[in-house]
C-alpha cells in the first residue's frame, strides 16, 4: 500500500473479507484509516470466550463417548438433539457480529471447512467448535495438533481402528491430503507409514488417550526419512515441510482473496507464513495490507457462504432467531449445516453454494425476515412435523430491527438514496441501477424499503 488510507469501497472489501461487512452507523463516504481498521479487526485476538450452550455438567447422558455406530434415535431424542445442535450453532452465529469476536468467528468458519468433521452429538460439536475457535487466531501448529487429536476427529477418521496389527489409513490420508499437504506432496507409501506412526491414538470420554498396546514401535520411513516416528513426530515432520505452509496459505488465499488467485501471489504469502512459524495473524495481516488484496479484480468476486450471508444481513438489520430448530433448518436449506459438512473434504465453496433452490432462498431472505414471512421449508409443516404449529403461526420465529440503517441513511432524498445504499451494500459497480431498481419516486421512500430491494439482487450474494 502506498498510503495507509482506504477508499470506502476498499474498507468495505476489507471488512467483508475479515468479517461480515460494515455496520450501518460505522459506514462513511470518505476515506478510512487502514491501521485503525486493522486494529479493530484484530481486537478478538485478545478475547476468547467458550460457547456454553449445552451445560456439560447436566448432560452426562449425552456423553462424548461416541457410539460404535450411530444408534437409532427416537423422535424425542431427535428433537432434543436438533434443539441443542441448533442452539450451539446459533450461539456461534450471535458472536459473529460482536466486535470482540468477529474476526475469530470468521477464521473459525474457514477452519471448520478445512478440518471438516461430523461430531456425533451436539455436545461433541460444541467442544470441537470451541477447540477450533480457541486456536483460530493463534499458530497453525497448535491448531492442527489440537484438532487432529480431538476425540471428535479421531472418531470421525476411525483412529481407533488403526492398530499395529491392522492399520487403518483414514486419519493419515486425510491429515496429509486435506489438512496439511494436498495431493501430490506425499506418496501412497507415506500414507501407509504415517498410519503406522498414528497407531495407538485413541480417546476416552472427551480426552485424547494414547493406547501403547496398539502402537507400532518399529521403524518407519516417511518423506524419505527413517525413524521411530509416533503421531506427534509425524505432525512435526509434516509441519517442517514448506508444502504444508503453501497448502494452507493457498486454501486461505482462495477464500479470503480470490478463488482464482495467481500461484505467484500465493507463493509470496506462504513464504511469510512458513517463516513466521505458522503465525495465522501474521499471515492475515500481510494479506490485508497487501496491494494484491485490494486489486479491483479481487473485490466482489467471492460468493458469500450461507453464514456470511446471514451474518451480513444480521449486521444491517440486527436479525435474531427465536427458534433454534428454524435456524438449523435454515442452515440445512442453505447448504451449510455447521456440524454436517457434505464429506471429509468440507463444503464446496463459491459456486458450490449455489443451485436453483439455495439461490431462490437466498434472494428471498431479506424480504422474508423483514416481513416475518414463513420460509419455504416451514410451509409443508403438516407433512414434516418439524415445528410446533403455534410457533409458526404467531410469527415469533425471527425479529429484525432496521433502525440503524434508517438512522444512517434517512437524511438522503429519494433520488440520492438508492445509489448511496447501493454503494454501501454492493461491492461492485452497478451501472444499470434504473433497470434494477424501478422505484416509485412519487412517495417518499424509506431506506429499509430500498435496502431490501438491493439485498434481493444477485449482486448482494457477492463480497
Amino acid at each position, binding site marked *: 500500500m502506498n498510503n495507509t488510507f482506504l477508499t470506502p469501497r476498499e474498507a468495505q472489501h476489507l471488512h467483508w473479507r475479515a468479517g461480515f461487512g460494515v455496520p450501518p452507523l460505522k459506514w462513511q463516504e470518505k476515506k478510512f484509516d487502514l491501521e485503525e481498521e486493522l486494529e479493530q479487526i484484530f481486537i478478538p485476538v485478545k478475547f476468547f470466550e467458550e460457547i456454553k450452550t449445552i451445560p456439560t455438567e447436566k448432560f452426562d447422558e449425552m456423553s462424548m463417548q461416541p457410539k460404535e455406530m450411530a444408534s437409532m434415535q427416537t423422535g424425542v431424542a431427535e428433537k432434543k438433539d436438533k434443539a441443542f445442535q441448533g442452539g450451539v450453532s446459533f450461539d456461534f452465529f450471535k458472536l459473529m457480529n460482536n466486535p470482540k469476536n468477529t474476526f475469530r468467528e470468521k477464521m473459525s468458519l474457514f477452519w471448520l471447512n478445512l478440518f471438516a468433521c461430523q461430531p456425533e452429538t451436539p455436545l461433541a460439536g460444541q467442544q470441537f467448535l470451541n477447540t477450533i475457535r480457541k486456536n483460530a487466531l493463534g499458530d497453525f501448529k497448535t491448531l492442527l495438533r489440537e484438532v487432529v487429536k480431538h476425540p471428535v476427529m479421531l472418531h470421525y477418521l476411525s483412529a481407533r481402528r488403526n492398530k499395529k496389527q491392522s492399520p487403518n489409513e483414514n486419519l493419515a490420508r486425510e491429515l496429509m491430503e486435506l489438512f496439511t499437504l494436498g495431493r501430490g506432496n506425499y506418496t501412497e507409501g507415506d500414507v501407509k507409514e504415517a498410519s503406522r506412526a498414528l497407531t495407538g491414538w485413541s480417546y476416552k470420554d472427551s480426552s485424547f488417550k494414547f493406547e501403547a498396546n496398539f502402537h507400532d514401535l518399529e521403524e518407519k520411513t516417511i518423506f524419505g526419512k527413517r525413524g521411530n516416528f509416533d503421531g506427534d513426530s509425524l505432525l512435526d515432520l509434516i509441519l517442517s515441510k514448506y508444502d504444508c505452509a503453501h497448502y494452507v496459505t493457498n486454501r486461505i488465499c482462495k477464500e479470503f482473496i480470490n478463488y482464482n488467485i495467481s500461484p505467484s501471489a500465493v507463493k509470496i504469502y506462504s513464504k511469510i507464513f512458513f517463516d513466521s512459524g505458522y503465525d495465522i495473524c501474521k499471515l492475515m495481516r500481510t494479506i490485508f495490507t497487501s496491494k494484491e488484496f485490494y486489486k479491483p479484480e479481487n473485490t466482489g468476486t467471492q460468493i458469500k457462504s450461507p453464514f456470511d450471508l446471514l451474518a451480513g444481513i444480521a449486521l444491517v438489520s440486527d436479525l435474531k432467531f427465536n427458534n433454534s430448530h428454524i435456524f438449523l433448518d435454515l442452515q*440445512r436449506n442453505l447448504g451449510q449445516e455447521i456440524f454436517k459438512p457434505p464429506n471429509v473434504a468440507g463444503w464446496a465453496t463459491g459456486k*458450490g453454494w449455489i443451485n436453483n433452490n439455495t439461490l431462490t432462498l437466498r434472494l428471498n431472505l431479506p424480504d422474508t425476515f423483514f416481513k416475518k414471512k414463513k420460509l419455504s421449508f416451514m410451509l409443508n409443516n403438516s407433512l414434516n412435523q418439524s415445528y410446533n404449529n403455534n410457533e409458526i403461526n404467531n410469527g415469533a420465529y425471527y425479529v429484525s430491527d432496521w433502525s440503524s440503517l434508517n438512522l444512517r441513511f434517512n437524511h438522503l432524498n429519494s433520488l440520492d438514496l438508492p445509489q448511496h445504499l447501493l454503494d454501501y451494500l454492493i461491492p461492485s459497480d452497478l451501472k444499470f441501477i434504473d433497470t434494477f431498481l424501478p422505484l416509485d419516486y412519487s412517495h417518499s421512500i424509506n431506506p429499509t424499503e430500498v435496502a431490501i430491494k438491493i439485498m434481493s439482487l444477485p449482486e448482494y450474494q457477492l463480497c
Partner: protein
Amino acid sequence: MNRRKFIYTSSLATGSVFIPSFLKAFETPSAKLAVGNKKLVVMQLSGGNDGLNTLVPFRNDLYYSLRPDIALKRSETLLLNDDISLNPALSEFRNLYDEGHMCILNNIGYPNPDYSHFRSMDIWQTASATNTIETTGWIGRYLDQLPDHLKKPHMAIDFSRTLNTALKGSEINGFSIPDYGLMSSLLSNKLLRKKKANFHDHHNDSNSYLHKTLSETFSSADYILEKNKSFRSKITYPNNVLGKDLKNIAELINANTDTNVYYVSAAGFDTHANQLKQQYRYLKIVDEAMDAFIKDIKTNNLFNDVLIMVFSEFGRRVAQNASNGTDHGAANVLFLISGALKSKGIYNPLPDLTNLIDGNLKYTIDFKSVYATILSKWLSTDPSKIVGNWNQLANIV
C-alpha cells in the same frame, strides 16, 4: 465459451464438411445421441436398509442361526419362489415380481466398504472410490455431458429440500423442487425477472454464474410449473412425504416433461434396535407409495418408459446385535422396476452367508456397473466419462 463448445456449435452451424477432421475429435460424442423419452427414477433408502430381511433366504440355516430373534419365518413372508421371499411389507413389490416388472440384483456394493452412513451415501451419490473424494454426483455429470440445447437443470429433478449431491455437476446442477409454492413466489418477483435477461459480467465469473443460475431457474421453473398444471393425478397416494414426492414425479411424467431423471429419498432404515417393527413400517411406506406411483404411470401406458432403481447406502451386518437390530454392513440388494425389463426376477445368486468379511456380505457386483448399465442402455449415454469404465450387466434393460 470453451473451445470444445465453440467447435461443437460451429459444426452444427456450418455442417461438419467444413470442419477439418483433426478438429472432429473435439466434438462431444453425446451430441450425436438423441435423448429419448426414457425416464429414470432413483429411490434412495437412507439409513442402510437391511437386505437380508428385505429379500429373505428362508432356506438358509445360517440366516436363522445368526439372527435367532429377528430372522423372518417363511410363513410370515411373501414367497417369490422355492428359496426366496420378500418382507411382508412388500406386497406390491411381490405383484411387480410376479408380473415380470422387477429385476432383483444381489450383493451390490464396492471394494473396501465404508460403514459411515454419510460417507457411504457420498460414495453412492458421487460414484467415487472409497479413498477418493468427488464433489460432483453421477447424475450431475450426466447433465454435464448433455448437448447444449438439452443441458438444462430440469433434466434431472430432486424433490428434496436440499439438492442431492448426486445431482451436482461441474457445469450444471439438477433442479431441486422443495415446494411448488416457493417456485411460484419466485416467478412473481418482477424485479428479478427483468434483471435476468442476457446478463453477463465479463469481469466477474461469480456474478455471471449467479445470473446464469437465476436465468436457468426462471426458465426451468416456468417450464415445470406449466407442465405441472397440465396433468392432475387421479390416484390416491399415501399421505406422507414419499407419497407426495412420487405423486409429483408421476404428474410430471404423465405431462410428458422433458426431465430424464428424478431423484427421491425415503428415510428410517437405520435399524440398530427392534428392527422388525421399524423396518416393516418404513418398507410399507415405500411399498404403498410405489403401488400408487405405478398405477399412476400405467394409466397413460408409460410404465414401459420408466425405470425405477431402489438402493440403500449399505446393507446390514449378517448377525443380529444385542438390541434385536443389526449394525452397519456392506453389500446389499438393489431393485430395478420397469415395464420394459429384459431380465426379470432374480438376476444373480443370493449372498453367500458362509463367506463373510468382518461379518458382512461380500459384494459381487460393483454399484458403478449398475450405473454404467443404466446410463448406457436406458439413458443412451456413454457412461465412461460419468462413472468410468465398468462392465455393463448383460440383458437388464
